[in-house]
């Protein structure tokens, strides 16, 4: 009898024609992608922690000026892009297409600004002699992990900017609705969240605190 009751409940849930978890296919798919991508970054950060602990001459060459100030500026830019993304999703849910596109373009602008700032920072470090294979301060793995992790994150920001522009175009041509904007926002916030781990682990922990 217990089984029969379970079966009936299942039928009632379905009878209404709603999805069992009330999540659309694309949103569920994006959440699953985020879980998976989070594990890729976790593995990279685990690898970084591992080699850092295992290497005796791990350098801490960064200083408050310019590195930390610059990285904080980049963080602020990325956080601003998250704010504009929220406003874009909000506008999309109100059905305000004009402001949806505007806020998405602002988000893409902040994303692009982040990449440009990051590029300037990279060039500065490269000019100081830091590369994938070596640096003037200590273990060459310092440069390898720095460029590996920030490069992977920058690749995600770049992909996100392309994604944002594609969504903006789709909204303009009325092919995408607010759900698409929201799912794109999920990805964008995730990429920001990853930075919130990269910033302390790769930057703040590499600051020279003085002997």
């Amino acid at each position, binding site marked *: 009898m217990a089984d029969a009751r379970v079966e009936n409940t299942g039928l009632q849930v379905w009878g209404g024609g709603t999805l069992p978890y009330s999540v659309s296919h694309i949103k569920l798919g994006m959440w699953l992608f985020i879980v998976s*991508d989070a594990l890729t970054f976790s593995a990279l950060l685990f690898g970084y922690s591992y080699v850092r602990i295992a290497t005796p001459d791990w350098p801490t060459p960064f200083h408050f000026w310019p590195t930390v100030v610059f990285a904080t500026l980049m963080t602020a830019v990325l956080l601003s892009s998250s704010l504009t993304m929220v406003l874009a999703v909000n506008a999309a849910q109100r059905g305000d297409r004009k402001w949806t596109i505007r806020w998405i373009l602002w988000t893409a602008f902040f994303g692009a600004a982040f990449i440009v700032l990051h590029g300037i920072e990279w060039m500065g470090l490269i000019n100081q002699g830091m590369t994938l294979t070596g640096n003037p301060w200590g273990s*060459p793995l310092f440069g390898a992990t720095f460029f590996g992790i920030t490069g992977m994150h920058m690749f995600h920001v770049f992909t996100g900017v392309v994604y944002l522009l594609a969504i903006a175009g789709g909204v303009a041509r009325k092919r995408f609705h607010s759900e698409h904007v929201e799912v794109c926002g999920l990805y964008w916030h995730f990429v920001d969240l990853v930075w919130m781990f990269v910033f302390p682990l790769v930057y703040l922990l590499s600051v020279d605190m003085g002997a």
Partner: protein
Amino acid sequence: MAGPGLGSGQDLWIISIALFCIASLLGALNFITTVLNMRAKGMSLMKMPLTVWTWFTTAILALLSFPVLLAAGILLLLDRLGGTSFFIPAGLVVSDTVIESSGGSPILWQHLFWFFGHPEVYIAILPGMGVASQLLSTFARKPIFGYHAMVVAVFAIGMLGFFVWGHHMFVSGLSPFSALVFSILTLAIGVPSAIKTFNWLGTLWGGKIRFTTAMLFAIGFVSLFVSGGITGLFLGQTSVDVQLHDTYFPVAHFHMIMGVAAIFGIFGATYYWFPKMFGRMLHEGLGKLHFWLTFIGVNAIFIPMHLMGIMGQLRRYAESTEFKFMEPLQPYQEFVTIAAFVTAAAQLLFLVNFCWGMFKGKKATENPWEATTLEWITASPPPHDNFGGRELVVNHAAYEYGVPGAPRDYVMQTDPPLESAK
């Protein structure tokens, strides 16, 4: 960057593995979303066939384990192409050449690889478990014994699989405390595995068994799962593993369970679903000959290989007569080699059967095995859109065989509710 003679082929191979990681991720999230969101009307989770449950769990494992391999692959590519040395230790000598390195750690590679690698073996075996469950129930004409326990056991195996990667690293310099924890968690997997095995036996108990080729392969799967799984208990214990590591024993264990048992699942599934795929039946006589030759063959290969491992035969040696203690094992080597060739040759029977069956096999009906799940209510092979535009309503659990009061000895999932249940 690694040893001499390893050129761009290795790089291309790593890139292809990275692409494979991304493809698996996309496939997995597609599968999970489909199972959660797009089931037929009335198909509650606990009415799903166990094949779907195992694939669902497999997809979760793929979703969580492949991204770590992807990260490891990226670091490995940086090592090979970017000149870094995440995984190359300082002072490494390969073929009398000192490899230039800034002191990375191969242990890091082992952690990242095995964090993927152990869930991966369940990715390989879980679908086979689902197929075995489906086939045993269908051909024993009984509901699967302990359906709920089967679902929980599949999940338990899958989730525990994420916390046991260290048992591949017992001799890599792991601290004894970590080794103990990994060992206990590894042995804990024996519990859900035993639940599954006893449930399979319980399904067979008192059944009206139809010994089709597909059924033989399903029973063969259970047999190999037991003999391959038992040897896993030896290897899961640190003290025993230290002795058996890098011998033929783990080689035999691994291939018995993940290689051959998984392949038996694939064979069983092929014999079972071939009529649905091509609208024709495979030849049963030829199929049974294929089964018996393969089943005896794989045991002839791997049972002696276990013994050789216990006697100290090391793996990865091209020439085993160089060492005095391995010399007496030469007859075993020869026996295993001959058994392997005979077993491989027996697979030609399957190939012949497959090709013959596709064009000349007996025409299949909609439901040749009198099975209950959804695919058997549609034509063989299925039309475009699988069910030809019909909207299905599921009223029954996945394995309702021999239900008292039912008009036949099986109740299909889409049959109307039984009078007696009202």
